[in-house]
C-alpha cells in the first residue's frame, strides 16, 4: 500500500496544479462580463444554445441548462439560477397546483417564438403522405381521442385529394411536463374548450382544464406517451410507426425530415408553421400591460389564434425569459450587466438566426415590449435601442414592418375546399370572408392568371417543400401523369363549373372530387392541386397517391401455402421418425 501512495499523491498534486493554473488563466478572458446561469425550457434551448455561442465572442458567458420549463421556474424561484426560460408564466393553476410567484422581483420578456407543429407519419400505398391538411377542430378531436381513424370523414373532407387509409390514428404525446404541451393546451383551451374539457374530465382532471404542461392520458385510448421532443419526434419518425401524429416544435419535424400538417387558420387557409407564418401570427399577440396584474407582461394569444391574416399560423406562441428586477439571491449588478447585454443581443440580432434554427423571429410588437423590459434588469447598461438599429429580420431599418409586407401569402389552393377552384381558375374571392371555403361562381379573374402560371410544367417541378408531397403521389404514375398534364389543362376550362358548384357545399365537394379522380375519368380538372409555397403557383396533378391493393382474396392462397409448408415439413420430419420407430421395434 505504502509503495503506491507516492504515485497517487503525485498524480493528485499534478491534477491540483493543472486545476490551479487553468483556473487562474480563465478569468483573464472574461474581464468585462461575469458569467450568468440560466435554466428552463427545452423548447427554446436550440436557439438559446446558438445565441450563447454567438455572444461568447463578446466575452459574455451564458450557461443554459435545458431542464424543462417547470424546473427553470422553480430554480429561479429558489434563486439557484439568474434567469429562467419558460412557456408558462408563474401563478397558473396546473393539475390542481398553483405555481406561486417568486419572492424576488421579476419580469417577463419574450425570447423565442415558434409554432407548434403536427408531425405525422402516414403512407398511402407505400407513398408517404406529405400534404395533410387539418382543421383546428380535427386536430383537437385527434388529440382528444374523438377521431380515431385516418379515414374519418372529417379528415377526408379537408383532404379530398388523398385516399386516406383505414388505419388507426396513434397520437403521440409528451409524457413529461413540457412547454409544447402547454402551448398546445393553451390553444385547445381557447379554441375548442368543450372538447378539451370533456377529454380532461374523462382523464380525471378537474375542469375547466385550461393550460397544463402535463398532457392527460387516458389508458386504453391508444395514445403513446414519450419523453422529450426528441422522444416524440423520434417515435413518429420510426418507419414502422405509420399512423402516428404528434405535436412538437417545428424544428424537430424539420430536422427529422417528416412532414407537418397544415392547419386551417381563421381566414380559411391551410398554412404550415413556417417562420414567417408564425411571425405574422404573432403580430396579433397582445401583452398584458396592466402593471398591477400578476400576469403583467404575459401573453394574450387570443389575437394570435384568431388572427385573420391569411398567412397566420394559428398555433403560434412564444416563450418568456424570466429576468430578475432586483439584486437578491446571488444576483448582482455585474450579472445584470451580462444579462442585459445578452438580452439586447437576442432581441435584435439574435433573431436573424431564428429561422434556420427552426423557430420564428419575434415580430416588432414583441421586440418593442422586450426592449422596455431590459431596462428593469439591475446593473444593465441601458441602451436606447432604436428600432432601426435593431437588425431584427422582421422589420427594416426605418421601422417598417418587413414581415407584414414580405411574408409570402399562402397559395390559393391552400384555401379550404380549394381543390376545384384552384384548378378551375375561377370562383376565387380573395377579400371574401367565406371561411367555409365556398366560392361564388363569379370570382375575380386574377386567379385565373394564377392558374395559367400553374400550368407551366416547370413550376410544377420546382423543388418546393410541398411540391414533394404531391410528387410523391405522382411517383407511381409519373410517366402518364406528365403527359396528361398538358391535356388536362384544357379540361380545366370545362371542368371548373362543375367543381365550383360542388364546392358550394363543401361536404359534397370533398368527396365527389376526391374519388372519381382516381377512376381516371376525363375530368382531369378535378385532380388534386400542387401548390408551391414560395410562388403560390398551383398545378393540377393527375396522378394521385394510390392505395395499394389490399391483398384480399388471399385467404385461399394462404391456406394452400400453409398446407404446402406442412407437407414440406412432414416430408422432412416424418421419414426419419418412422424409420427410427421401426428400427427400435426391430431391435426389441
Amino acid at each position: 500500500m505504502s509503495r503506491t501512495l507516492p504515485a497517487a499523491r503525485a498524480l493528485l498534486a499534478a491534477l491540483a496544479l493543472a486545476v490551479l493554473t487553468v483556473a487562474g488563466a480563465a478569468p483573464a478572458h472574461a474581464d468585462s462580463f461575469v458569467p450568468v446561469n440560466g435554466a428552463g425550457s427545452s423548447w427554446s434551448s436550440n436557439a438559446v444554445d446558438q445565441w450563447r455561442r454567438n455572444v461568447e465572442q463578446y466575452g459574455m458567458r451564458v450557461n443554459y441548462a435545458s431542464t424543462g420549463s417547470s424546473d427553470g421556474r422553480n430554480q429561479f424561484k429558489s434563486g439557484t439560477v439568474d434567469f429562467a426560460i419558460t412557456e408558462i408564466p408563474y401563478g397558473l393553476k396546473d393539475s390542481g397546483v398553483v405555481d406561486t410567484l417568486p419572492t424576488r422581483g421579476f419580469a417577463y420578456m419574450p425570447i423565442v417564438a415558434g409554432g407548434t407543429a403536427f408531425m405525422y407519419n402516414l403512407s398511402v400505398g407505400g407513398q408517404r403522405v406529405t400534404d395533410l391538411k387539418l382543421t383546428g377542430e380535427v386536430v383537437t378531436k385527434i388529440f382528444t381521442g374523438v377521431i380515431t381513424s385516418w379515414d374519418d370523414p372529417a379528415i377526408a373532407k379537408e383532404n379530398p385529394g388523398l385516399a386516406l387509409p383505414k388505419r388507426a390514428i396513434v397520437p403521440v404525446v409528451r409524457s413529461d411536463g413540457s412547454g409544447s404541451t402547454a402551448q398546445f393546451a393553451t390553444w385547445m383551451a381557447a379554441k375548442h374548450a368543450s372538447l378539451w374539457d370533456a377529454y380532461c374530465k374523462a382523464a380525471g382532471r378537474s375542469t375547466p382544464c385550461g393550460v397544463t404542461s402535463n398532457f392527460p392520458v387516458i389508458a386504453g385510448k391508444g395514445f403513446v406517451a414519450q419523453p422529450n421532443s426528441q422522444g416524440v419526434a423520434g417515435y413518429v419518425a420510426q418507419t414502422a410507426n405509420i399512423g402516428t401524429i404528434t405535436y412538437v416544435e417545428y424544428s424537430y419535424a424539420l430536422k427529422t425530415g417528416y412532414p407537418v400538417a397544415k392547419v386551417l387558420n381563421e381566414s380559411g387557409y391551410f398554412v404550415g408553421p413556417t417562420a414567417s407564418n408564425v411571425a405574422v401570427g404573432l403580430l396579433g399577440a397582445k401583452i398584458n400591460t396592466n402593471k398591477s396584474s400578476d400576469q403583467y407582461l404575459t401573453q394574450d394569444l387570443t389575437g394570435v389564434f384568431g388572427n385573420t391574416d391569411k398567412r397566420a399560423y394559428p398555433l403560434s406562441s412564444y416563450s418568456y425569459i424570466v429576468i430578475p428586477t432586483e439584486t437578491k439571491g446571488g444576483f448582482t449588478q455585474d450579472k445584470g450587466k451580462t444579462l442585459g447585454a445578452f438580452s439586447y443581443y437576442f432581441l435584435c440580432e439574435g433573431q436573424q438566426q431564428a429561422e434556420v434554427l427552426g423557430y420564428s423571429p419575434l415580430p416588432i410588437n414583441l421586440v418593442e415590449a422586450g426592449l422596455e423590459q431590459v431596462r428593469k434588469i439591475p446593473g444593465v447598461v441601458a441602451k436606447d435601442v432604436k428600432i432601426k438599429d435593431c437588425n431584427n429580420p422582421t422589420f427594416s431599418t426605418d421601422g417598417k414592418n418587413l414581415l407584414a409586407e414580405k411574408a409570402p401569402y399562402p397559395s390559393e389552393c391552400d384555401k379550404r375546399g380549394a381543390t376545384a377552384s384552384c384548378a378551375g381558375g375561377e370562383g376565387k374571392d380573395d377579400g371574401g370572408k367565406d371561411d367555409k371555403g365556398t366560392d361564388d361562381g363569379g370570382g375575380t379573374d386574377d386567379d385565373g392568371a394564377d392558374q395559367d402560371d400553374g400550368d407551366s410544367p416547370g413550376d410544377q417541378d420546382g423543388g418546393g417543400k410541398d411540391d414533394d408531397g404531391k410528387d410523391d403521389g405522382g411517383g407511381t404514375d409519373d410517366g402518364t401523369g406528365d403527359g396528361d398534364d398538358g391535356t388536362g389543362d384544357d379540361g380545366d376550362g370545362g371542368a371548373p363549373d362543375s367543381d365550383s358548384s360542388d364546392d358550394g357545399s363543401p361536404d359534397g365537394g370533398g368527396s365527389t372530387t376526391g374519388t372519381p379522380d382516381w377512376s381516371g375519368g376525363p375530368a382531369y380538372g378535378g385532380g388534386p392541386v400542387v401548390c408551391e409555397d414560395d410562388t403560390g403557383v398551383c398545378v393540377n396533378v393527375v396522378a394521385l397517391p394510390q392505395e395499394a391493393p389490399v391483398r384480399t382474396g388471399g385467404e385461399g392462397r394462404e391456406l394452400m401455402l400453409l398446407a404446402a409448408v406442412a407437407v414440406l415439413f412432414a416430408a422432412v420430419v416424418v421419414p426419419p421418425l418412422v424409420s427410427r420407430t421401426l428400427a427400435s421395434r426391430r431391435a426389441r
Partner: protein
Amino acid sequence: MTTTEIRETHLVPPGDDATEARRPEARRLVGGTRLADLLGLVGAAVGAVALTALLVTQIFPVASGIAFTVIALGLFVGLYALLVSLDERPVAVRDRVAMVVVHTLAFTVLLTIVFIVTFTFARGLPALVHPNFFVEDMSLAGPLDPLELGGVAHAIMGTLIQITIALAITVPLGLTAAVFLSEIPGPFARFVRTIVEAMTALPSIVAGLFVYATFILALGVEKSGLAAALAISIMMLPIMIRSADVVLRLVPGTLKEAAYALGSSQWRTVWQVVLPTSRSGLTTGVILATARGIGETSPVLLTSGFTASMNLDPTTGPMVSLPLAVFQFVKSPEPTMIARGFGTAAVLMFLVVLLFALARFIGGRTRKER
C-alpha cells in the same frame, strides 16, 4: 466441450454392458467436436433460416426482423433436436437442446453488448473523426456549427474532476466503514450494514435531490462540480462499503489469529494483514463504485448546472460531466448535436474501460510483487 463429455458418459447405460463387451474396445473421444455434431448444427441453422424465409415471405408477411429472428430460433431448436434424435438417445437429445438454448441466450447477451457499443460508435463516428472533438469545449460551437468546431474536452475534464473528488471522499470513508463493519461486530454494526444495504437501492435522483436540498438550497452554495461530486459520492459509498465488507470478511481467520499471536494490536493487524491481503478485492470494490459514479446522470443533472465551456474550478460555476453532456446533446433537434452526443457516449465508454484497466493494473501489480 463439457456437454460432449456429459453425453459420452450417458452413452454407457448399465443395461448395454453385454453388447458392449462383445465388440472390440474402441478408443473413446472424450473431448473435441465430431463432424456430425457440427453438421447437425449447421444443417439445423440452414434449415431454420430457409423455412423461416419461406414462412415470412410467402405466408405471413411480417416485416420486422425481430419476428424473423424469433421464428428462426424456435425452428432451429426444433430442427436441431430432430437431427440429434436421429442418432442419439433421448438423454443426449435433451442435453444437446439445453446446450443450444443456453448458448443462444449467452450469444444474445453478447450480441446486445456488441450492438450497443457498435451503434454508439457508429452514430458518434462523424464527431469522433475530428480531433478537435477531444481537445475543444463547446463554448464556440452552437447548434448551427459543423462538427469541425467544438468538442467535449470540458465534459471529460468535468467527469475526471468530479470522480476524483468523489473518490477522495468515498475511498477513505468507505474503507473505514467496511473495516468497522468487519472488525467491530455488534448491534450498531448490524444497523449500519442494514442502512448501507438499503442505500444501495437508493434511486440516484434522490441522491441528487438530497444534495440539492441541503447543499444548494439550504447552505446556498451555487451549483458546481463540488455539489455534483457530493451527489455522486452518495451513490458510490454504499457500493464501496458493501463490496469491501464482503472482501474483508473473506480474509482467513488464521492469518489474523497468527498476527494476534505475534502480539500485534487489532489496528496493527488490520493495517498490516487484513487490508494488504484483501487488496485485490478492495480494488474491485473501488472499480465498481467508480463505474456506478461515472455514469450517473440524474444526481448531476440537479446539482452541477450546465455549461458549454471549460470550467476546471469545482467550487464555482457549473461544471458539466460526460453523461450530462450526452443527455443534453441528444435532446437537440440538430443532427450534428446528436452525433456529438453519441460521440460523447463513446468517449465515456472508452474512459470507463481505461479507468478499469488502470485500476486492475494497480490492484494486480502489487499482489504479484508480494
